């Protein structure tokens, strides 16, 4: 580990923290329907859309109406994307002449993008046309991020309202998240990325003649516009196979830094939106503090493990840490930092290959996702995921002192706790259940590229990433098969909707309740004690559920590596 590495990590945290208040202020106004700087330009567009759609912006929905709209919107998005992928050979903007996408891969990719997972069974430059990338993937990047933000805002309204039947309008929230938050940031951001060297062209790939006289065919495309939303929307699906490790997706140390910040920016700021909307910004900071504790601990472990390097390679006399699968311009510090950020959020973009991380370095990304990506988390998804954990923490605290638990003046009762547990339990069911199935079926065992415990980790990582809607991978796994494409697709759907819909149900139930005034017996939820309790609950629920699976994969691998053992045959 180097001092410079830690300075970069500290600088990252400082920049994210500095953005929380201004972005939080702006988004609070946007979702409150107030005027913003961009209203003169975007207001007419927004009102025009509502007119054609037959919407009254003031008409709100109950939680069921909100959830119904959400489902309808996702189904339509799925059908559209599936059709584009299947028909891409017949559609324009296909200079490389990519053929139609196979049905199982199209199912997997469509599911992956509507659920904000962006798992890459596809290889960007070898499978998809420019039109599929733009009209298909870029647009779902926006909409899946916007729906995540919408659900978070609806859940916040559940806490901030009293005796209310409604949670806002899904259509209005999605439109505003897209037009006022994501789109303007992306235009500026994409141009910054082009300035850093990311291509943005509709031209075909270019054949270069290398200095040694060989032909090198260099894939291109409208990359910058997609990378901007893939980061800001915590989508993570790469334009290229190698994702943000590819020099055309992440050309410089500066582009790398800004990409890391942009993964966290909206998710972190939503905690401030929460604080503002419930009328006490300290509540938002307390939640962000709990996220921060878990985040810094994860970064420290991963950075330490990667700087130490792999015992096996160090045994050959290699020094300098683990550089396998990492890019020179990023080095070990920001590769480790990126890996923790991308799995803490539900981004899943990678600037280094997680599969080649040391056993302990790869353990933290796994744990981050298994905890449900509540450490800042995906845009929106992180906040509502963490609020679910908050309810459990409050419930546990209530049990300890024998008092009906309250949070922000709302009594937390059986219905909320049941829904919260449903949202929490569906993840281990998908992650561990499918891993167990794949670890015994021949179709599952055909996947891993590495032998021994690392092969098991590859399978576990895949289902963890899918159910958590992350999308990063231990990329050695051959996932583009009927078995993996379908089972991973199911895990993504369950991981998305069995968290979102319970979250909306909780919001609906809370919004209907009266607010009870705080009394001397009320547990303060803005202080250190609450932060500690929340961190503890997240770790205990996550840790205990997943510990056995982690012991079989990364922990065994670490111990075997330390003893100098390798697996599989060479060459």
């Amino acid at each position, binding site marked *: 580990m180097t001092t410079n590495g830690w300075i970069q990590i500290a600088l990252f945290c400082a920049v994210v923290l500095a953005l929380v208040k201004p972005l939080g202020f702006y988004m609070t106004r946007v979702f409150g329907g107030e005027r913003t700087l961009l209203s003169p330009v975007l207001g007419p567009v927004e009102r025009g859309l509502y007119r*054609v759609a037959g919407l009254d912006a003031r008409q709100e929905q109950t939680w069921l109406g909100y959830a119904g709209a959400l489902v309808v919107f996702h189904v*339509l998005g799925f059908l559209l994307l599936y059709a584009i992928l299947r028909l891409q050979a017949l559609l324009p903007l296909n200079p490389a002449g990519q053929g139609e996408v196979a049905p199982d891969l199209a199912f997997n990719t469509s599911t992956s993008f509507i659920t904000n997972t962006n798992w890459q069974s596809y290889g960007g*430059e070898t499978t998809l046309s420019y039109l599929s990338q*733009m009209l298909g993937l*870029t647009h779902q990047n*926006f909409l899946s991020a916007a729906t995540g933000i919408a659900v978070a805002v609806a859940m916040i309204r559940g806490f901030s309202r009293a005796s209310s039947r409604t949670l806002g309008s899904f259509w209005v929230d999605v439109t505003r998240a*897209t*037009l006022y938050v994501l*789109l303007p940031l992306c*235009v500026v951001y*994409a*141009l910054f990325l*082009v*300035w*850093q*060297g990311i*291509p*943005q062209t509709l031209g075909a790939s*270019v054949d*270069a*003649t*290398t*200095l*040694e006289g*060989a032909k*090198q065919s*260099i*894939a291109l495309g*409208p990359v910058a516009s*997609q990378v901007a*939303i893939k980061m800001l929307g915590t989508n993570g699906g790469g334009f290229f196979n*190698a994702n943000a*490790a590819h*020099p055309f997706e992440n*050309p410089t*140390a*500066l582009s790398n830094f800004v990409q890391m910040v942009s993964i966290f920016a909206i998710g972190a700021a939503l905690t401030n939106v929460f604080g503002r909307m419930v009328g006490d910004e300290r509540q938002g900071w307390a939640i962000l503090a709990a996220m921060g504790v878990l985040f810094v601990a994860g970064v420290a472990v991963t950075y330490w493990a990667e700087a130490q*390097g792999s015992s096996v*390679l160090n045994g*050959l006399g*290699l020094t*300098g840490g*683990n550089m*396998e*699968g990492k*890019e*020179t*311009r990023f080095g070990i510090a920001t*590769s480790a930092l990126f890996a923790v950020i991308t799995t803490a959020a539900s981004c899943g973009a*990678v600037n280094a*290959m997680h*599969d*080649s991380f040391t056993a302990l370095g790869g353990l933290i990304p796994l744990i981050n996702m298994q905890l449900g990506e509540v450490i800042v988390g995906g845009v929106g998804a992180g906040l509502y995921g963490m609020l679910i954990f908050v309810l459990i923490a409050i419930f546990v605290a209530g049990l300890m002192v024998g008092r009906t638990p309250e949070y922000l003046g709302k009594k937390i009762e059986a219905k909320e706790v049941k829904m919260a547990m449903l949202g929490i339990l569906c993840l281990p069911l998908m992650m561990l259940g499918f891993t167990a199935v794949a670890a015994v079926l021949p179709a599952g065992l055909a996947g891993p590229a590495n032998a021994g*415990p*690392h092969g098991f*980790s590859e399978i576990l990582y895949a289902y963890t990433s899918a159910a958590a809607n992350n999308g990063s991978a231990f990329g050695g796994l051959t996932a583009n098969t009927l078995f993996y494409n379908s089972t991973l697709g199911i895990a993504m759907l369950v991981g998305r909707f069995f968290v979102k819909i319970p979250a909306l149900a909780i919001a609906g139930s809370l919004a209907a309740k009266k607010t009870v005034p705080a009394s001397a017996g009320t547990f303060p939820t803005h202080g250190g004690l609450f932060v500690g309790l929340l961190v503890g609950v997240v770790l205990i629920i996550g840790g205990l559920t997943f510990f056995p699976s982690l012991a079989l994969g990364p922990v065994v*691998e670490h111990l075997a590596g330390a003893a100098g053992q*390798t*697996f599989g045959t*060479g060459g």
Partner: protein
Amino acid sequence: MLTQLRPALVLMVALTAITGLAYPLAVTGIAGAVFPAKAAGSFIERNGQVVGSSLIGQNFTSAGYFHGRPSATTAADPADATKTVPAPYNASNSAGSNLGPTSAALSERVKGDLDTLKAENPGAAVPVDLVTTSGSGLDPDISPEAALFQVPRVAKARSLPEDRVRALVTSRIEGRTLGVLGEPRVNVLALNLALDDLSHP
């Protein structure tokens, strides 16, 4: 549900057009006008011929050029399209090795590369980036140590004094951005182009 269908359809179509067509095409237009070379892929021409992109590494094997890092990219086997064969620095199929820390294949590959490099420059410690593949397989850079390590071989192959080659490498080292971000590095293609200006291979 039916009452939801009209807003769903209208918003899906309109937002698709805005975010999936208008946005990328507008960015393409502006980027092409403001940063034309970068938007096109940062290509480098020599004598009117495209020799590569300054951002994309390329495969160097001859002794008279500095070599980049090992690359794990592959291409379809010309004999059997269902199989792949190693094709280092294949810029239309980026990939890492995805070999894990206890992989025997990784350990044997590194051992082989270490032996070759130790024979080439006995006595010097082999920099880690010269025996590890990058994440993309297209890493355009190597560490300054990795460039300096290769100076004796390149100087000998080109019949140049080592000091001149070393001075060239030193002049090509890029520091951390703003003094803190990333790691110091040397762009291999740019270094080799400068080398060709110094002496023909």
